[in-house]
Every structure is written in structure tokens, then in C-alpha cells.
């Protein structure tokens, strides 16, 4: 894999095929945990961690267990099982070995585990027939894109909370409109990289 491909995958997942704003995956944490920048950053950390880990584990399960047995049609349920088990294990391990990291990420880990972005990255990896390294990078890049827009959006919402929004648009409504405008803006990246 050349350095070129490396950057194309990264660029593609962060901007062009952004998980939230272009593929519309993981919208619940995007709307739910974007009220404060600090919690958005915590969520971003947890998401990056879980999505990268999920890509790795699901690739291994798919490649070494499901594909040789001809059980590809069990992908969805097997991936859910793998992701949930691995995240739960890491959460326990983290709580014991690194309480500080656990305090920062701990509450967000179970929130993101069963998220569609996490399952989506695993399924897209198999659909696009990525190899091990590409899968990992795709998961990491997707999470990076998710983090970028989540933090941008939460910063905007903090400003919105203090601004004088007309009454019918207050709260979630203006959040939805902002998300839509951001999505339109990200559509502008379409065609920049093809992956």
C-alpha cells in the first residue's frame, strides 16, 4: 500500500464520505452528546477507540471464522456480538488498570458500543473487501471524521445556546437546521477522493 492510498483513505473517510454528514451514520450521539464541547471531546475519544478496535476485531472474525466456514450471512449478528464483547472487556480492563482513562472515557464507552456508525464501519469494511491495514485505517479515519464534525457541531451549539434564536426554532430545531447546513457544506467535498 503506497503512502498515496493511505492519504486517500484518510481524506475520503474524514471529509468526502464523512460518516455523519454524508453517510448519515451515528446521528444519535451527534445530536445527543453535542451540547457541550467537553462531553463531545470525551465522546470523540471513546468513538475513535471503539471504531478502530471494532474494525480490527470484525476483520479478524470475518476473515478467520466466518469466511472459511461460509457463514458470511451471519456477519451482522456476529459483528454485534464481537463488538459488544470486546468493548465490555476493554472497559473492565481499563477500569482496573487505568482509572484516569476510565474516568475520561468510561461513561461514553457503553453509549457508543451499539451505535450504527460502529457496526456500519465493520460492514462497509467487508463490503469494500478491505485488507487488514485498510480496515483499521478506514475505522480510524471514520472515527476521526465523526470526531471532527461532533466537536465542530458542539462548539456551534454552545454559541447557539447563548444567541437569540426565534422561539419556534429554539433548542433541537435549530440544531437540526445547523446539522443540515453542515451536511450541505460537506457535500461540497464530493468527488475530491474516490474510495
Amino acid at each position: 500500500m503506497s503512502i498515496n492510498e493511505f492519504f486517500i483513505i484518510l481524506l475520503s473517510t474524514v471529509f468526502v464520505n464523512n460518516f455523519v454528514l454524508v453517510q448519515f451514520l451515528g446521528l444519535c450521539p451527534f445530536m445527543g452528546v453535542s451540547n457541550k464541547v467537553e462531553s463531545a471531546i470525551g465522546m470523540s475519544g471513546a468513538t475513535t477507540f471503539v471504531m478502530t478496535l471494532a474494525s480490527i476485531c470484525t476483520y479478524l472474525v470475518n476473515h478467520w471464522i466466518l469466511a472459511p466456514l461460509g457463514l458470511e450471512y451471519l456477519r451482522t449478528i456476529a459483528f454485534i456480538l464481537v463488538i459488544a464483547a470486546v468493548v465490555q472487556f476493554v472497559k473492565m480492563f481499563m477500569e482496573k488498570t487505568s482509572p484516569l482513562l476510565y474516568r475520561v472515557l468510561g461513561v461514553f464507552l457503553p453509549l457508543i458500543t451499539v451505535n450504527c456508525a460502529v457496526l456500519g464501519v465493520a460492514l462497509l469494511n467487508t463490503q469494500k473487501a478491505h485488507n487488514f491495514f485498510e480496515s483499521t485505517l478506514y475505522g480510524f479515519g471514520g472515527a476521526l471524521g465523526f470526531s471532527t464534525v461532533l466537536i465542530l457541531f458542539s462548539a456551534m451549539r454552545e454559541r447557539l445556546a447563548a444567541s437569540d434564536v426565534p422561539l419556534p426554532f429554539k433548542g433541537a430545531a435549530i440544531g437540526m437546521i445547523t446539522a443540515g447546513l453542515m451536511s450541505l457544506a460537506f457535500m461540497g467535498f464530493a468527488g475530491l477522493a474516490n474510495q
Partner: protein
Amino acid sequence: MLEFISQHTILTALVALVSLSVLFGAILGFAAVRYKVERNPIVDQIDHILPQTQCGQCGYPGCHPYAQAIVDGDAINKCPPGGQNTINALADLLDVEAPSLNIEHREESTIKKVAFIREAECIGCTKCILACPMDAILGAAKQMHTVIADECTGCDLCVEPCPVDCIDMIPVEPTIQSWKWELPTPITFIASDKDVLSPEIAA
């Protein structure tokens, strides 16, 4: 046996999923024992009773540290936002006498208050912003500050640090949306106890 399983697709799927589940279950079960964290359950119980305003009026940086301090032997009457109800609940949990709220930690106020900055007098020192546990004060250095009334919990931690004393705690007037039926004052005796407990009422 193996041949029989691999000939029936449904059996292959079942065996594969069940063995995966058992494997992960075993790993998680092992981890639950191996990485068990020793925690004092009483701290969590106390923390659960505290109001979680994280206001710091008890002198600790938040509710959980105060819960830890109670376990280590601190008094249970240092929480003004929780009021007498919290103290009673704590006393009940810890099986001790319920003291009244420590006056040093400010009197209990049943009226909901909200901070208000007299903006003409504000010099923009940002000291109140740093003091606010709720992030409810908006402003920047040398710019006028203001309080987001919806976010303010009325803990009056911002009043003390203000160098020009331009912060008032004003009571919130009840509106149609916020008005609540007042709770009845607790009655501590029943009819037959009248003459025993309070002779002046009986008389």
C-alpha cells in the same frame, strides 16, 4: 458428527454462533473476576442521595468527594442545595441522629434564586466565571459579563469573588410555567398524641 453439522447450514450457523457466544461469555466472565475493582458501596449510596449539583458549598470539589468525606467521618449537614431532606435521608442511611443544616454552610433557602449581574458596574474581571460551577456566566476579560438565567442554580458562589459587588441574588418570580403547588408542612403528631407532644396546641 462434524460432517453432519457441516451438511446442514442451520446447524453450522447455530454451532458457530453458540461457540462464539460461549467463548466471549467465558472471556467476560473471566475478566469480571480478574479485573474486579474494589469499591466502597456506601460511598456510592451516599453519592446517590446527594443532589449532584456539584456546587462545592460543602467545601469539597463535588458531590462524590463529599460522599467520600462523609465515609471518612465528616459531618452530614454541609449540603445546602439538598436541604433538610438530604440530611434526613443521609441520617437514615447511616443510622445516626439527623442534625439541622450547618449555618456556616449558609441557611437553607426555599426560595429559588438566580444570580443577576448589574452590567453597568461590571468591570469584566472574569472572577465570577471561574467560580461558577454550572458554566452559567457568559463573558470575556474586560467585557461585560452576564448570567444565563436558565443555567443558574442560584448557588451564590459567584457573589463572593466579585471585586465590585455587582452581583445580586434575585428571587425568581413564579410564572404560570414554573409555579408549583406548595408542599404541605409536615405534621409530626397524630390526633391522639396532641396533649403529650404539644400542650399549647392541645390547649
